[in-house]
């Protein structure tokens, strides 16, 4: 689970700069998730972190910079979960299944935080959207590993993985937007099948059930 604010308790001791920053990011994530980004201010974040407002200002120019730091950490955790779940020695379909399971499990368990970053963060504009694109690119790079594992995938169009991953993310964001995170586990089997489609395709069209590879591992 994404324990954004759990590692650090309250208290008023002195902290190293790195730890202060972490506490502020934790506090931001907690407050913004509870109140919404539009109703969150630096004072509330500093108070939640148990630090003076001046400490917030020494780490972040403004609240959006703190949001981006929290955003980066959330996606670092998400991508880390995916990477950890993929056993590079396992058959490719098993790796994809594990990666999607880890990603959706992470998002479902931290749904309120995920919604903050997926739905509210874009309100700050291009910096958040660029972060989103970079985060998706990291997942695309993982899926692209499949080209070396499957003859069918070696000749896929260059944008295949980008389209599949961005499409899958779009479905997850739609579920978060509609506050239907309870449906995410049902999406898991679907996404496993869809993301494995390119690896089950023959070069002269489908010779059988196109969803078979995905269902076998899903």
């Amino acid at each position, binding site marked *: 689970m994404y324990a954004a604010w759990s590692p650090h308790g309250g208290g008023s001791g002195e902290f190293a700069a790195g730890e202060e920053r972490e506490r502020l990011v934790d506090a931001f994530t907690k407050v913004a998730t509870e109140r919404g980004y539009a109703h969150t201010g630096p004072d509330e974040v500093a108070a939640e972190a148990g630090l003076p407002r001046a400490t917030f200002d020494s780490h972040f120019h403004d609240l959006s910079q703190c949001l981006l730091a929290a955003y980066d950490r959330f996606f670092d955790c998400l991508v880390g979960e995916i990477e950890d779940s993929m056993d590079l020695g396992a058959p490719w379909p098993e790796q994809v299944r594990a990666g999607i399971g880890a990603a959706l499990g992470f998002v479902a368990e931290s749904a309120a935080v995920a919604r903050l970053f997926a739905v509210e963060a874009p309100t700050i504009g291009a910096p958040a959207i660029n972060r989103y694109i970079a985060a998706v690119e990291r997942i695309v790079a993982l899926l692209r590993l499949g080209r070396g594992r499957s003859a069918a995938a070696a000749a896929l169009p260059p944008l295949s993985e980008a389209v599949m991953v961005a499409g*899958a*993310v*779009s*479905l997850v964001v739609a579920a978060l937007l509609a506050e239907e995170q309870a449906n995410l586990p049902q999406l898991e089997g679907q996404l496993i099948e869809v993301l494995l489609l390119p690896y089950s395709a023959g070069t*002269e069209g489908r010779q059988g059930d196109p969803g078979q590879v995905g269902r076998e591992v899903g």
Partner: protein
Amino acid sequence: MGGDPQRRAEVSQEAAGDPRDWLVAAFAKAAAEHGYAKLEVDHVLRHAGVSRAAFEANFATMEHGLVAAQEAFLDRLWLDVAAACEEPAEWAFKVRAALHAVLSSLIEASGQARVFAIEAVGVSLAAAERQFTMLDRLADLLRSGRGHHPLAVSLPEATERTLVGGVASVVSGHLLREDVEALRSLEVEFVELLLSPYLGEQGARRVAASRSRTP
């Protein structure tokens, strides 16, 4: 608007319609010009040639204006798709024509597309919901291919929405970076990706690269 003849002509033309329509059209033009983040009611009023009271009578907030203008933009895109699908061609070529129509419209009106596909979705949940609804509609349209290609019947349910959402995200990335011309060169690849689950990779490649409307 003063002595600008083009502006006077536009106002005169608009005077025949509903003030709300003028405002929606003006909102789209002004938003494309300034970006939503810097858009002010006065910008919209200058394009619409109406009073602030008229704006306030139609839209309680700027967000309402944004969503109305986005809705009009998406409606036009949908009409482009519908027109492309009416062409006398096989299903796969209709998909290609529809994609071409959408990309052409987005490239032609890239300023508006950037506002409604990216900025609006960031600042308004209602706008984001409308965009997702549009993606669902396009996915439903693509799903009709299952009726034309029996092997596609057993495709995973989420196939079309994943493909359409993925292509839309890649397009949005290009709009954000303001390199819309690159979309023209990606059109063939998009067609290939959208059709592969139905026709197989080589069949999709043939349709994407072909100049005709039939295989």
